[in-house]
Structures are given as structure tokens and as C-alpha cells.
């Protein structure tokens, strides 16, 4: 059985696709998510063989979700769209599989055959746009933090936290994604910093150096990342 994760903001669309997949007899829907933000932890948790991904969704669309995912966590993706000429062009240019809603069973059978033969690959990074905002979990809300609000990012055993002037926000994104796609600089195994927001670099002794951000937040800098930071800050 191919294990699939569905992401679509419409409940009936999820039900319909799940029913069609069930009818193929080859695919098991292990989880369904109603938006891209919920999909990030779900992907990590269930590790599906394939992701069926709607394009038009609230807050973060299907393409943007790709940008937020760690390449190691990204399974083959089948995009599902009702109508989006631009998206279809992009899929065709990148040889990415896609389905049009309402989905025709015959067309879906071709997709499933391709998945079974192991021909499907995760989509190329070129499909993912630059990250604009970082989805962060609040107690009862999702906050989308703009990149220029971010001063630093730290990871601990509890997870990854985005540090802003107004406080820290938990996110499901990995440090690697934030480093590679959001342009934050790695200064420590567990810390990234937004170079634009650095106001001071304090050289330390054995414990290592630190940088201070505009709102006074202090971030440790380990020895091996110091030269790169100095270069980015223009301090030689």
C-alpha cells in the first residue's frame, strides 16, 4: 500500500480524493490536513510515501509549503488544483505530476501506476518560491511572522523558536530550511541570526563570542562560524 497524506482546505475535496484513492485499492490515506501549516508536523509524524497537495489554500499555498519543508522530509508530491493556468504551466515545465479537480479516476490511475513503479520524485526546489513568512504556533492561533521581524532563530530540545522583538514563537520549520531558504546566517550549531538585525558583535574569551540584536537579544557565536559572520558584517 502506498501511504498518502492529503492537504486541501475543502472538506469535501479531501473526502472525494480519499474516496477515489480508496477505490484504486493501492493507496491508503494515512492523514488529511486542512491547511499547509498543519501539514508540516503531519509530514514529519506520518512520513507518507506521497503528498497530495492542493495549490490554492489560505495563508500558505501549496507552492509555499514546498519552500517550508526540509528536503529530507519531502516525499513525491502530486499537486491537485481546480483551475490555475499558471500552476499547470509550472508543473509541466518541471515534470511534476498534477491532477485537475474534479479528479477523473482514469487520470488518477495513471498517477497511482507511476507511484507504484517508483517513478515519482520529490518536486525540484525550483518550484518553491522564496519564504515570505514563517508560520508559528501560538496556544490557540497560528501566527505568520514576517522575515524582517525575525532577529534570530534558536533550536533546543523542545523545538525551533523564532525570536522577534515581541517575543519567541515556536515553529515546525527546521533550522536548515530557515538557513537555506530564508537567508538567516548560521552562527552556532543551534542558532541562526538575521544579519540585518545585528547591532553588536561582542568578542569573548573561552566561552566564545556573542552578537546582540536590535531589541537586545543576545545570540552565541561559535568559533567555526565566526569568520563567516565577520565577513557578512563587513568586519575584517
Amino acid at each position: 500500500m502506498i501511504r498518502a497524506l492529503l492537504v486541501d482546505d475543502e472538506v469535501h475535496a479531501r473526502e472525494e480524493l480519499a474516496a477515489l484513492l480508496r477505490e484504486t485499492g493501492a493507496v491508503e490515506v494515512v492523514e488529511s490536513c486542512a491547511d499547509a501549516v498543519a501539514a508540516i508536523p503531519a509530514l514529519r509524524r506520518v512520513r507518507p510515501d506521497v503528498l497530495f497537495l492542493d495549490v490554492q489554500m489560505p495563508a500558505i499555498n501549496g507552492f509555499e509549503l514546498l519552500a517550508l519543508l526540509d528536503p529530507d522530509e519531502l516525499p513525491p508530491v502530486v499537486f491537485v488544483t481546480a483551475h490555475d493556468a499558471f500552476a499547470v504551466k509550472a508543473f509541466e515545465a518541471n515534470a511534476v505530476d498534477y491532477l485537475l479537480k474534479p479528479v477523473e479516476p482514469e487520470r488518477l490511475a495513471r498517477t497511482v501506476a507511476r507511484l507504484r513503479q517508483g517513478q515519482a520524485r520529490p518536486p525540484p526546489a525550483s518550484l518553491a518560491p522564496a519564504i515570505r513568512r514563517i508560520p508559528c504556533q501560538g496556544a490557540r492561533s497560528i501566527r505568520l511572522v514576517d522575515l524582517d521581524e525575525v532577529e534570530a532563530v534558536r533550536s533546543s530540545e523542545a523545538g525551533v523558536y523564532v525570536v522577534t522583538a515581541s517575543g519567541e514563537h515556536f515553529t515546525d520549520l527546521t533550522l536548515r530550511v530557515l538557513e537555506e531558504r530564508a537567508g538567516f546566517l548560521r552562527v552556532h550549531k543551534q542558532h541562526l541570526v538575521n544579519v540585518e538585525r545585528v547591532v553588536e558583535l561582542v568578542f569573548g574569551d573561552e566561552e566564545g563570542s556573542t552578537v546582540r540584536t536590535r531589541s537586545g537579544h543576545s545570540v552565541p557565536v561559535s568559533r567555526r562560524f565566526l569568520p563567516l559572520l565577520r565577513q557578512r558584517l563587513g568586519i575584517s
Partner: protein
Amino acid sequence: MPIHLRLLVANLEAMAVFVAVFYVLSRTQAFQPVPSERPLRTWLLRWAFFSAISMLGSHLGVTLPGGVIANTRAVGAVAAGFVGGPWLGLAVGLTAGAHRLTLGGYTALAGAIATTMEGVVSGLVHVWLARRSGPGRLPDWRLAAGVTALTETVHMGIVVAVSRPLADAIQVVQVIGPSMILANATGAALFALVMRDRQRLREQVAAESSARALRVAGRTLRLLARGFGPATAPELARIIREESGAGAVAITDVSTVLAFDGLGQDHHLAGGPIVSPYSRRALERGEVVFADGEHEHFTCPIDAACPLDAVLVSPLELDGKVIGSVQLYEPRHRRFRSVNRSLGEGLASLLSAQLLAARYEEAKGLLTVQELKLVQAQVNPHFLFNSLNTIAAVLRNDAPRARELILHLAAFFRKNLKRPAEVATLREELEHVNAYLEIEKARFADRLTVETEIDEALLSLRLPAFTLQPLVENAFKHGLAGLLGPGTARIRARREGALALLEIEDSAGAYTGAGDAEGLGLKSVDTRIKNLIGPEYGVAVSCIPGSLTRVTVRLPFAEARA
């Protein structure tokens, strides 16, 4: 054979006759548990039929000494109540009861009272089922048997209570009771089974034909965007034949056959003139014409050896004019499937709607920039395909609900196809908006709330057509669609002195200013109001970021009285 068994066999024999007759008659409209087009005629038919069954029940019973009849009279009255409610049950019960009195015997009065009571009780069951599960519900066989067994038991009680001498009455109940209770309950159960079976069949046909129509619609939408003519007709005919499985499918314009696919395509050639009287009639009158191959036969005017025998011709319309037809054919000795009949009828209107949409795409290039913006807002393919997808999903579990949604979608597109220059009433605008909202509510059932608050005095307010709809669509497209959690839309119409105010609110609060697409949409509605009514009226926006966007339309209230 012991007396009990003899009576039971005799009663069951009579029952078998009734059920066989009912099985045949249950195909007719009069015995469907749905509102009829001719209620009085249906009622009288039902009354006559069930009364006849009930009276026949008395006659086919076994007459015992003293004029006692072990009978199956109850079943007619009970079935009448289940199908037609307490009044029909009462009427049939009274009729059959009166008839029983004429047959005489010391249990005659008790029988008459009991039959009337049984008609009324089953009628009340009908009412109870309708309240609980919606109109047209029939009891299942267990309930039917249970109710009848119970009322027949009461019947026996009435015999004991009413008939004299008492000793004889008790004895007779011991003899006829078991067989009458068992036979009538069995009969009621069989009636219920037949009726439910018919009902299920009709629902299946309806669901299957809607599913097919949707599949055809999905496949033809892109095709018809290229227009209707000799270039697209062959593909269209092929798609419809594949989906319907009909013997042959033809597409015509008003004078010639554009495409013919299937049996007889050797002599029914594309490009040939239309000669069949059925096609002519459909094209001239703009109505669906059906020759079922049983009562009315299609006779091929070209080749006497043509296998085709039955035909359904549905006219295609554009802007109120017939521009062609879709024709489904079946050969001799093949039944014209009722699924295909309703499919063929529905298909023509679906295709007509698609043609109109295509026409608008074409006309876009000719419209002014401002009108163009409106039309673009109108034919939103993303909305259409998502709606079709929702309907496809709903169809799996709830065909009547899917049908409702199709009607809303049809209403929405029909209203969308009006010329933007027209003036509309607020009532019409709200109908348009409601059709749209019903679809959106179905799509986002789990996280969308819609509240409306309309001052009825404003319903006849006149305003430029397409004032409300684009604003409501904006609230979804640029507001609620971006929300991760639940959202609320509110639509209000109220008076304030000489002003009529229409307010459209969404709980997203995502309005960013006059510069974006949303701002342009508002601007175009505003301009039209100012041009058509006056510069002091128009559209204003206020926004509390993250919690509320309110668009207010100011119109003169005096217009309502004009």
C-alpha cells in the same frame, strides 16, 4: 387441515393477489409517496384502489358460521394510511367498513370500526415518519408488520368488546385471530417492501444520471470553450456516447447534422440535412421530444434497414434561441434507459449554460475595460471547478443535497449571465448572492458562518445589477479565503433616513487599500453607482486589520418607492 392453518392459507392467498396487483400499479405516479402534480386526482385514485383492495379483502375472506369473515381487509386501509396519511387511511377505512356492514354478521360492526381505526393509525405513522425523517418516508417492512399486527390485535379486542353474544365473540377471536394478525402483518410488510423498492430505484436513477451529467459537464467544458460547430461536435458526440452508453448520439445545429456517432453512422452522415420529424419538432418548439420505441417509434428517413428505433431530442439554447440539438438513439430491442432519459434532458441545459459561458469568453474582447473587470469576476473557473468537485463528493452520500447544490450553481450562473448594464432589484441581487453563498457554505461547511439581516422594505430597492455579488465575492476571495480558522460573513440591508445602506462584512480584516485587485473591484462598483444614480452615493470601506472589513454601499431609499 386444522382450521387455523386453513384460514391462514386462504388469507395469504388473497394477500398474494393484492401484492401482485400493487407491484404492477406501484410503477405509476399515483403510488409514489411524493407530492403529485394533480393532487385531487391522485388522492381519488389512491382512495379507489385501496378501497377496492380492502373490500376485496372482505370478499376473498373465509366466511364462518354467523357471518364472521376471516379476512385481509385491514391491509388495504393500512397501506392507504402509510402512503397517503390519516385522511386517506380514514376514507379507505370508512369505505371498506361501510362495505363490511352490508355483508352482515354479528362481527360486522366491530370489523367496520377496526378497519377505520387501522387506516387512521397507519396514517398517523405516516405523519410521524414525515416529521422524523422528512416527507415521502415509508415505513420499513418491520414497522409496517409491527403496526399492522398491533392494530389487528386491537381489532380482535374490538370484536370482543362490541360483538354479542360475548361467549361466541371470544370463541371466534380464538379461531380467526392468529391467522388474521399473521396474514395482514405479512401483507403490510410486503406492501412496504414493494413501495420501498420502487422508491430506492427512482433515487438510484436520479443519482446515477446526475453523476453522469457531471462527468459529461467536466469533459465538455474545455471543449465547448472552443465554440459549438462542426469542429467540436464530433468530440462532443463521442463524449456523450461514451458516458451514456447510448446506441448512437447525434449533434445538430438548426438545419444540419454536425456529428453522428454510433449505430447507423454509415448512413447518418455529418453535413446531412435534418429530416426526422422528431428533431424538427424539438428544434422548432424548443422542447424535449422523446420517442420511446414502444408506443412511438423513430423511423429512419434515410435507410429502411436502420437499426435505430427510439430517440430523445433535447434542444440546445443560447440567449433564448434554439441553436441546435443533442440526440440520443437506441436500436430496436434495446430499452431506452431511464437514466439516459433524464441525462439527455438535463444535458442540453448544462451544455447550453457552457455555451453561454464560452460566448462570454469570446465577447470579453469586445467589452469596455470596466465591463471586462466585471465579467472576469463572473466566470471564475476556480469557483466552478471547486463547486463541481464538492458536488461530486456530496453525490456519494447524499444525492438530494447534491441536486440542491446543482440547482444553486445553475441559479448562480444564470444570474451571472445577465448584462452588467441592467438595473436589478435588491431581491434579485440577494438571490444571486444566496446561490453563491449556498455553494460556498457547502465548500467550507466546517469553517464558514454566514449571517444575513435584511430589512424587507428594501427588497424592491432598485440598484445597478452586479452591485452586491462582486462585493460578496470579494469578501471571500480577498478576505475569508485567507483565514486559517473559521470565518464569518455578514450581509445587512437597512434604512437610515433617506438612505438605503448595504453592508458586507467579513471577519478576516485583510483589506489593504485601494491599490490592489480588491480595491479595483470596489472602485468599479462605486463608479457604476455614481454614474447611474449620483455622485453622492457609492461604496466606502472600513477595516480593522485582522478582525473586520466592512464595505458599505450607500443608495437613495426613495428609489424603493419608484
